[in-house]
């Protein structure tokens, strides 16, 4: 145990001395978390620039316009009063949605002939697209109810009769877990999990490459210290800081970005524990294999975006081909991101997370097994020769 403690102590000393590593371990996760938090802080699209092209300018058309004006989600952009103007605004992104009321709209309606109001929205960004569509439908449904009520009142029906007609079959739409459709509630936790995974892997995967580059890895190899002790000592500081960052990010999400973080603390802790173990031992093992710090850094950072996209956290796995889903299942993030949503957003208990906990446990066990039992014999490094950056070194100006 003395040996493990000594290795862990001197790893910590190194982290404190290496300024960039220190930042990576203690500041970068929070920095990225703050950045994402800031970006998604509002979480809900409001004041969507809307152009109203009212070619009729009648009482009825003004009612339609009013319905849109009254929606808290839209902000009418003044000065656009032709279809061409709407087209231009949509192309240049100054408006994201439009309502076009045709000429003689009211006259046609009073004559009981068909006419229609055109609503358009910008689907080039589907975050805009989906949300605007929803808001528009909401406005239309409110408008229709009011129109029908007025119409029926005009026919002399009593309020009770009108209400009966309008509400005969009423739908109570309940949106669970994220009733405001907040984008922050939806995406932030997954992003935080990938921050934890990638930065965690990056830090711990430099621990052996660093020793290899400075040749001191030989000291470990020729010492009578067991492989598992090297692993435990080297990864302990990273495991602890990883766990700390995990907690920190969750607290940050909850109390600063104000996203929904519910669920049992014990379960959250268990997941964090399994996740940290997996990341730390996988990173350590990666470090044993990697040629040098430069290559690890390149590959790890590059993989962040693809890992996130295939995880099924954003685009639902039901609509992703099975071979991609199967690949994604090999990445801890896939399980962890889903688990974090189930616990923190959906507030579910352990019975709903059996698969995730099982998968993460298997991953933790397998990666720890390989890390604990690595061979203390290395393949002798090939002399650099013409291959740039594949040996134990990389360009530096020291």
């Amino acid at each position, binding site marked *: 145990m003395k040996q493990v403690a000594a290795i862990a102590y001197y790893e910590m000393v190194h982290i404190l001395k290496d300024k960039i590593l220190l930042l990576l371990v203690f500041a970068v996760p929070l920095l990225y978390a703050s950045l994402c938090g800031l970006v998604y802080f509002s979480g809900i699209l409001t004041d969507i620039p809307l152009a109203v092209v009212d070619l009729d300018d009648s009482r*009825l058309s003004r009612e339609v316009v009013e319905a849109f004006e009254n929606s808290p989600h839209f902000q009418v952009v003044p000065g656009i009063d032709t279809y061409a103007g709407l087209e231009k605004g949509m*192309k240049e992104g100054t408006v994201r949605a439009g309502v076009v009321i045709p000429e003689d709209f009211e006259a046609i309606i009073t004559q009981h002939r068909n006419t229609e109001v055109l609503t358009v929205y910008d689907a*080039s960004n589907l975050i805009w*697209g989906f949300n605007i569509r929803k808001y528009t439908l909401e406005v239309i449904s409110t408008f229709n109810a009011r129109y029908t009520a007025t119409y029926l009142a005009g026919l002399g029906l009593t309020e009770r009769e009108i209400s009966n007609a309008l509400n005969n079959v*009423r739908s109570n739409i309940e949106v669970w*877990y994220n009733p405001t459709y907040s984008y922050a509630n939806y*995406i932030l936790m997954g992003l935080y999990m990938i921050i934890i995974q990638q930065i965690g892997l990056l830090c711990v995967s430099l621990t052996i490459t660093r020793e290899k580059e400075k040749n001191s890895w030989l000291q470990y190899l020729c010492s009578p210290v067991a492989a598992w002790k090297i692993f435990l000592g080297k990864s302990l500081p990273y495991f602890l800081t990883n766990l700390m960052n995990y907690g920190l990010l969750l607290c940050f999400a909850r109390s600063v970005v104000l996203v929904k973080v519910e669920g049992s603390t014990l379960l959250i802790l268990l997941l964090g524990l399994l996740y940290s173990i997996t990341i730390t031992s996988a990173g350590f093992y990666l470090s044993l294999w990697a040629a040098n710090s430069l290559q690890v850094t390149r590959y790890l950072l590059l993989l962040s975006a693809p890992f996130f996209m295939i995880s099924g956290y*954003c685009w639902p796995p039901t609509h992703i081909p099975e071979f991609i889903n199967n690949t994604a299942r090999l990445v801890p993030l896939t399980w962890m991101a889903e688990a974090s949503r189930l616990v923190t957003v959906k507030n579910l208990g352990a019975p709903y997370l059996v698969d995730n906990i099982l998968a993460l446990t298997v991953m933790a066990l397998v990666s720890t097994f390989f890390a604990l039992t690595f061979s203390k014999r290395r393949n002798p490094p090939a002399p650099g020769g013409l291959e740039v950056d594949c040996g134990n070194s*990389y360009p530096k*100006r020291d």
Partner: protein
Amino acid sequence: MQNKVVSSMLRQCLAVMRREVYYLWRDKGLRKILLAGSLLGLLVFYATYSAQVLKGIPTAIVDLDCSRESRQLVEDISNTENLKVVANPGSFAEVEELIQRGEVVVGVVIPENYAKSVSLRRQVNLAVIIDGSNMIYATNAANTVLAITGTINAQAGIKTLIAGGMHPDQAREAFSSVTFREEPWFNPTLNYAYFLVLALALNVWQQCCMLTACMNIIGETGRKSWSLLKAAGVSKFMFFFSKSIVQIALFILTVLPVYYLSFNVFKLPLACSFWVFLLFTLAFALALHATGTLVSSFSRNAVNSTRFGMIIAVPSFILCGYTWPLEAMPQIVQQAAWVLPQTWFFQGINYLTFKDPGWTFMAPFFSALLVIAVLSYTAAALIASRS
């Protein structure tokens, strides 16, 4: 005399360029990343989004009434394009369970006395539950549900009015005289693959390019051979200029297969002309390369340079507003985001691929990228010449 100087400089340039090609080729890690990275990214993302549109949202319907009317309602819901009824559980609790398990996203419960209440014109409540935890699913589900329930509500209302003695035409008019037609512009099928795949692949591409650019200066000054080059009296400007030309050419070369696959094989939309799009890509490649070069000029070693470069390149996609719109971010983030070349690029490609707003509108995008390039190259040159 003058000719001789020029030709010797040209020869030197060519020699440096040739060596740069060898260097990039022999850096095995970088070679794999550059050759395969963005293409692999494109294929993976295209496969991920191969469903393209979010139809068939898993839905559960509980019919507690089991009447002719309620069965009709179930059928109406099942026939909607976007919903796919995957379960017919027997109770509300089972729907709850299915939603909690994530097996369905929408749950509809038709109450016991549905047919009776409708015929007696008593108010009856359909319970609709939507799982809001995945926003893409939830908004799509909500839109479909809003449309259906609107129709159901109107149909029931019309029946009520007719039963109350109103003329059928009048009853129908009460509910549907104002029709609203919706038109999603630029991406009429709401195709998610059109929206994201190319951008995600280009995001991988710009990260690969950043990795290369981050080696530009430190890749030389960090090597022992640097003193040889200095001793040989090669002009630093000429040297890095030649290197940069090779790197930028390589960036464009690696993006070409991505574009070919995207537009010719996967048929992703491109509103503007291909050459304009390529020119815009070139402008971005310059700006990106300049940023990477700047980073490589002040870093002490290649690892740090790579880290700094990637600290910019990795979160830039989140910051650029391609997905979650810039307008919805806090003012300070919006302003900061425009400093990054990636923001100009990704905003620009959204306009170019979907809208083609014309030269006058795109001019600021081109100029901004060129200004970033000039500023970064200048700063890099100043730093490199001082050290």
